[in-house]
């Protein structure tokens, strides 16, 4: 160890040199590059803080950020983007950063909302208005689908199909849950399940089975086979779930076990209902055009920037911007372009166009 003492001495000198250079640079630098607002920003330009969801299995979350960035650029506003990294701890840290940056408005999709009350307190104390996508929080502008009604809409459509095709003779109703999403799961999956029950009340209670799909196809496909094996006599099967990925996982498991003779799944979020490789048993989904949420959020931002803060409407049924869910069957979805194409088209459309008006052909 001691033979490195000489090295140690040069380390010390090296650090002193580095520190000097650093201080010099600090003095010369005018601060951070264009992307973020200057630190002392009272009269600075209007800045949007955007926190993307960061869930690794959801491509629309990254695209939300892209759309928001271009909307901000079009208005000549400042724009700061962070990722919530699908963690409530990171989301809370992001709140601190946005407050430090003195952004004028925060838009966020936070898939782990457990810490929202704490963040709401911080933002309130800092006087920063917040737009939240899909997950309501008292005091925050709610832009999104009413997940509860989206769940009910999907379940109702599926139930109606079961009624017309099978006369409501259903042997099993599978719920592909995503429990770590908490309330959203209860709304989407739970309400879909209840809606099926409403349309076809004679399905026995024992026929309702849940399993953990964790909102992604791989985990869903891993856990679903056991469910099918455990109910070997179920012929007519319905599948609801927290999103398309979860539902398709169950449908694929059915195919692998040869149980897809008479099975129908209705998804949520429309992630796997468009394109060339739609699962044959995914009969429909509910599209929210999540990638276009920022367009609606920016409407609120526009009003704020003009000095007319709109009233804070913060719940699903009393929303600042209520996104209409678009339940689509597979055939209807065939006419809807892919998510990337939709982002491009929405960007080219005149300001104020909603994705629903552009794409919901149902």
């Amino acid at each position, binding site marked *: 160890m001691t033979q490195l003492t000489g090295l140690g001495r040069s380390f010390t000198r090296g650090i002193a040199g580095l520190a000097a250079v650093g201080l010099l640079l600090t003095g010369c630098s005018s601060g951070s590059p264009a992307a973020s607002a200057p630190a002392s920003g009272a009269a600075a330009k209007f800045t949007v803080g955007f926190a993307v969801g960061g869930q*690794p*299995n959801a*491509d629309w979350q*990254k695209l939300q950020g892209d759309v928001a960035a271009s909307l901000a650029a079009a208005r000549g506003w400042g724009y700061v983007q962070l990722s919530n990294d699908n963690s409530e701890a990171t989301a809370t840290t992001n709140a601190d950063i946005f407050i430090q940056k003195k952004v004028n408005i925060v838009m966020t999709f936070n898939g782990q909302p457990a810490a929202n009350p704490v963040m709401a307190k911080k933002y309130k104390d800092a006087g920063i208005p917040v737009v939240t996508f899909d997950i309501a929080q008292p005091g925050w502008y709610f832009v999104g689908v009413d997940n509860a009604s989206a769940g009910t809409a999907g379940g109702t459509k599926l139930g109606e199909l079961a009624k017309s095709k099978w006369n409501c003779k259903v042997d099993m109703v599978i719920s592909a849950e995503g429990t770590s999403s908490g309330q959203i799961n209860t709304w989407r999956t739970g309400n879909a399940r209840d809606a099926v029950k409403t349309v076809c009340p004679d399905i026995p209670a024992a026929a309702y089975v849940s*399993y*953990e799909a964790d909102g*992604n*196809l*791989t*985990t869903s*496909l*891993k*856990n679903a*086979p*056991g*469910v*099918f*094996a*455990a109910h*070997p006599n179920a012929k007519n099967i319905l599948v609801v779930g927290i999103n398309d*990925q979860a539902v*398709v996982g169950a449908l*694929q*498991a059915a*195919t*692998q*076990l*040869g*149980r897809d003779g008479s099975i129908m799944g209705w998804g949520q979020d429309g992630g*796997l209902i468009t*394109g*060339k*490789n739609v*699962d044959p048993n995914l009969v429909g989904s509910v599209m929210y055009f999540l990638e276009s949420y920022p367009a609606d959020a920016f409407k609120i931002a526009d009003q704020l920037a003009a000095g007319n803060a709109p009233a804070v409407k913060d719940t699903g049924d009393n929303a600042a911007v209520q996104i209409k869910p678009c339940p689509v069957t597979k055939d209807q979805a065939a006419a809807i372009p892919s998510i990337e194409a939709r982002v491009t088209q929405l960007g080219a459309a005149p300001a104020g166009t909603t994705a629903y008006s552009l794409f919901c052909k149902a």
Partner: protein
Amino acid sequence: MQTSPVRTADGSASGRQDGSFVTDARDRTGLRDTLSILGVWLLLIIATTVVRPDFLSTQTLLAVTFTMSISGILAVAQALVVISGGLLDLSLPVSLTLSAWATVTALNNDLPTWAAIFIGILSGAAWGALNGLIVVFGKLNPIIVTLAMGFGGLAVLLLLFLSAQIPSDSDLRRFGLGRFLGLPNVFWPMVIVIVVAGLALSFTRWGRRLKAVGGNPQAARTRGISLPKTRFFVFVGAGAVAGLAGLCFAAVNPSFTPASGADFQLNVIAAVILAGISLSGGKGNLLLLLLSVGFLSTIPTSIAFFGLAPGWSLVLQGALLILAVGIDGYRLKRSAR
């Protein structure tokens, strides 16, 4: 890291010219390990059958064999690394996902199936080679290297793609949906890989060299085996096997994301440990690996039959792992006395 089995130089004393380490004591423990895993598996099956007599059915067989297919192949990759004394390879999920993505991209660009398969396995091997290079040239601990590469690799994958879909009309996809001899198609590559690797480990010079390097690296070196070369090729080989797992993964998952492979990590390591493959290297029986993968894959199905919440599946897997290594350690202590 605390290593419990006391590795003595006995291996070299009874070693033959070819460097094999077979001793009587080891054969006996192999049989006992087989019996104990079989025993626990049987216990689980009996317990489930008592509660639900319809547990013993083709549906269950399909469910279990399907669930164990991809983990099984990946477990072989991990086992090769562990047996060769490489401690653990924590970046196998990256090899798997990289291979799956490369294969799917090739297919989406209308390349023929055989080319896509080749590209897939090659990608897995390439990632393994990268890991191997860093371990060998840096002389660094493989756990740390592969931990870092696992982090970094995932990030690179996220920069490469957000989601990937295999063309539904491709041969590979049709393969993933089909069956052979009543069992899912993807089950058979796993069986072949385990059997081939197992035979190779026990009966070929390559296999014996691998075990020698794992069991007693100093002795192996004095016998002229090049440690760096062996280690490097083990990582490449494990990467290639993980690439094969990636192919099967792409075949059965119509849509996947960069993080999809991470699911397999803990399960595969647990399978390797349950199979009695010591993390100190040198010994390992792939037949036991087949049994432990099968056993672990039966648990989620059993839980479904019991009607329990799915979280209990994880609880049971964790508890069984602790129990298994506890019993293992206890037996070792008792025999060492």
